[in-house]
């Protein structure tokens, strides 16, 4: 039974204009296993998933699904649903304006009428069965993101799916919510559902997965049983190189020396989203805000940048009293902010790489003094090269770049303004390991050049590597400040948890 396959994909190829996204890829999923699909950005994970769910057609290859005769033909998401492939995407693909029960049953069946009462009853039973804390009649928008995701999973379960694809399900959840999700995943596994788990979090892979399939540059690297593949090797396989790069991080671990000059100082700063807090950062210092999702770390830096309405407090930049209430004023004072939500607050997807890069500088100069075309080209070329942004040309719309490269474009945008103080909110979220390292290195390099940097990341390890001071937040309050020897994972966890043993 455990080795009974439920999904077999053989020789899948997919060509996009100019790119071979998938080249002869095999994938096998067994009944009742959690199978992690790993790879850097652009490795072909998303393409493989989209081929499987009928969003893209495949150029070559065959797909077999357990229970259906012969080759499976999947031409649309509906086809995929009908043969038992269900997908839960990173972005919630449910309707926020409908009730939980409706979201579980809409789009299924063919009758002229819908049986709302039946739905609510069945939904109630299933939600209770799966321990999902949602009420059937509740409007979906009133559930937390984690619960919404679980509702999407419940929908898939109710459709008797054989294959459940979870595409980056944990990236917007906090630890507790992730654990809830994992419990649910294990429960489904014991019911014989095959789960494809796509994620960037290595620890999570090792926590729940049975097997790992690694893709690189559209090709299959291999399929491994989790126990046989230590984490370092997995990273090496994903990146396709030896661990040199990874090890070379250690030489960066001596953090930049901090000068006494205070770049930015806030007293009792508060915004409509954050409680008053005190904060200061020295020249050339890299510090970090850490805490669980929702602890107020993003809200605090948004207040510094004036991204939320500032409600009070005193701010000094380079020793001078200033008044920052909106992002423009922050920029004028040499503060740059790379937002957490890249797609919404960061890139302007339809503009070219060049236009996205010069945006902040142009705003600071004012729109009546446009940069010359030659300057724009020069800046764009310079930063595309400096940050090794992978783009077809500087006129490519930024939306068509991979996540990591989009992030680099936004970084370039701020670097071009030569800020004294740069705030990076989750710059490494959802991007591949290689780019993550590059960004970490860049942060340290900036610090050497006397730029103050605030670095926020969900991965504590990453912050320990780059930051010389960590500010720990819990429930929207600063609960600790760690420096020097205190910078250990254990100590951070302890402080976050509030002194309880971790």
């Amino acid at each position, binding site marked *: 039974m455990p080795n009974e396959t439920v999904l077999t994909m053989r020789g899948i190829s997919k060509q996009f204009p100019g790119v071979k996204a998938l080249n002869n890829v095999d994938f096998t999923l067994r009944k009742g296993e959690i199978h992690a699909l790993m790879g850097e950005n652009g490795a072909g994970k998303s393409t493989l998933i989209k081929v499987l769910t009928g969003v893209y057609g495949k150029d070559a290859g065959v797909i077999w699904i357990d229970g259906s005769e012969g080759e499976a033909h999947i031409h649309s998401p509906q086809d995929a649903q009908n043969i038992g492939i269900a997908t839960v995407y990173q972005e919630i693909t449910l*309707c926020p*304006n409908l009730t939980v029960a409706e979201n579980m049953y809409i*789009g299924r069946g063919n009758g002229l009428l819908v049986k709302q009462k039946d739905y609510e009853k069945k939904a109630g039973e299933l939600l209770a069965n799966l321990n999902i804390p949602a009420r059937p009649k509740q409007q979906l928008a009133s559930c*937390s993101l984690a*619960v919404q995701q679980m509702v999407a999973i419940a929908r898939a379960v109710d459709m008797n799916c054989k294959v459940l694809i979870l595409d980056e399900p944990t990236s917007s959840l906090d630890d507790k919510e992730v654990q809830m999700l994992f419990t649910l995943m294990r429960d489904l596994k014991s019911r014989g559902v095959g789960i494809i788990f796509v994620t960037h979090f290595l620890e999570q892979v090792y926590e729940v997965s049975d097997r790992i399939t690694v893709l690189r540059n559209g090709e299959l690297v291999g399929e491994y049983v989790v126990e046989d593949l230590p984490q370092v090797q997995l990273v090496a396989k994903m990146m396709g190189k030896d661990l040199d790069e990874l090890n070379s991080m250690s030489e960066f671990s001596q953090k930049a020396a901090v000068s006494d000059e205070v770049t930015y100082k806030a007293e009792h700063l508060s915004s409509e989203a954050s409680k008053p807090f005190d904060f200061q950062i020295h020249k050339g210092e890299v510090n970090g805000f850490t805490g669980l999702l929702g602890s107020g770390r993003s809200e605090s830096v948004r207040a510094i940048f004036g991204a939320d309405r500032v409600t009070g407090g005193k701010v000094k930049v380079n020793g001078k009293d200033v008044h920052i209430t909106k992002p423009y004023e922050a920029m004028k004072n040499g503060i740059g902010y790379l937002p957490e939500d890249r797609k919404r607050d960061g890139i302007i997807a339809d503009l070219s790489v060049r236009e996205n890069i010069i945006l902040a500088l142009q705003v600071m100069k004012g729109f009546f003094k446009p940069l010359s075309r030659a300057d724009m080209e020069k800046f764009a070329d310079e930063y595309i090269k400096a940050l090794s942004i992978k783009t077809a040309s500087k006129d490519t719309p930024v939306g068509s770049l991979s996540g990591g490269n989009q992030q680099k474009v936004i970084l370039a945008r701020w670097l071009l303004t030569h800020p004294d103080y740069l705030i990076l909110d989750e710059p490494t979220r959802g991007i591949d390991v290689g780019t993550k390292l590059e960004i970490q290195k860049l942060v340290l390099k900036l610090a050497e050049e006397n730029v103050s940097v605030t670095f926020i990341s969900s991965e504590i390890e990453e912050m320990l590597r780059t930051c010389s001071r960590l500010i720990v937040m819990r429930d929207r309050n600063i609960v600790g400040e760690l420096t020097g020897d205190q910078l250990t994972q254990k100590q951070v966890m302890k402080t976050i948890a509030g002194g309880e043993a971790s």
Partner: protein
Amino acid sequence: MTVQNSSLNQKRREPLTDTQLLMTITICIFFVMYILAMLLLGGGFLRAQQIFDLLNDNAPLIIVACGLTVVMIGGGIDISVGGVTSLVVMSCVLYLNNSGNMFVSMLLALGIGLAFGLVHGLLVSYLEIQPFIVTLAGMFFARGMTTILSVNPQKLAHEGVNALRAVKIEIPWLGYVAKNGNLIPARMELGVIVALLCVIVIFLLLKFGRTGRNFYALGGNQQSALMLGINVKRTRFTSYVISGLLSGIAGYVFMMHTGAGNATNAAGAEMNAIASSIIGGTLLTGGVGNIIGTFFGTLTLTTIKKIVVTSGLNDPWWQSITTGAMLMFFIVLQSVVLSRRGKVKTSRNVKE
């Protein structure tokens, strides 16, 4: 957070959904307004006939507003409804005056409406053209066709239909006693029955129909609707067909009410219908709306106009000004209410 409150207390009453909340607000405001009018203005407002007059005069508006609500819930817009209504009136009057058949004239009305709905639906859903542009073109086309058919007003001269026009439903117990001692019963036109039927049918469709629920899903999030396995294109197509069909019906009811075709018939009906839907709690962004709300929205809008006239402000601009103010008031009210709800429900830190 919801995570902690996992006690699945089934008996607990769910908070109103956005749709229900907005509708409730509208209904309350309508009644408060009407009661105030009864107390302060008295006169006609104390008689039941006042309500029936409102319905008699505005049955076509109620019908087109129903169609528009359907389209708006699906996240679209249809501004051709007034034009189509007017084209239907003119076509039917001309056809009937040329010794046409009453039954065929009804089919003609439905046919014209359906044709517009089909074309709009096709262009919007399958060729993915902006609905505003498509229906704007439809509106100009319909208005133009009406003028081509006849520049001059045409009086309906078909005996059968005129006889039907004269039929009024009398409700004696809602009547009043005139000064000379005669009982004058409340009168309702047949068109009102049609309008109420439309309201009921659309209500049932939106509440219990598979297609109806799909409209909400489509308006809520198109991408999600697609991923949930809904045929997005067909659903959107259907919404425009329904709107077109209802414009056809509205045209016939309009003709029954006025008994004449005129190139300026139902002028601005699309804007009044949009206003009615919005006042009734439909959001232009889609996914939220309710046909009962729209019904009361229409009544609210028309009552306001009546109140303005009754207060002695007879100049036509007063109606426009109050309509505008009313609409603004409702939109602001809705956005304040919804954003306050949003703040209570989802705390700022839950990011997408």
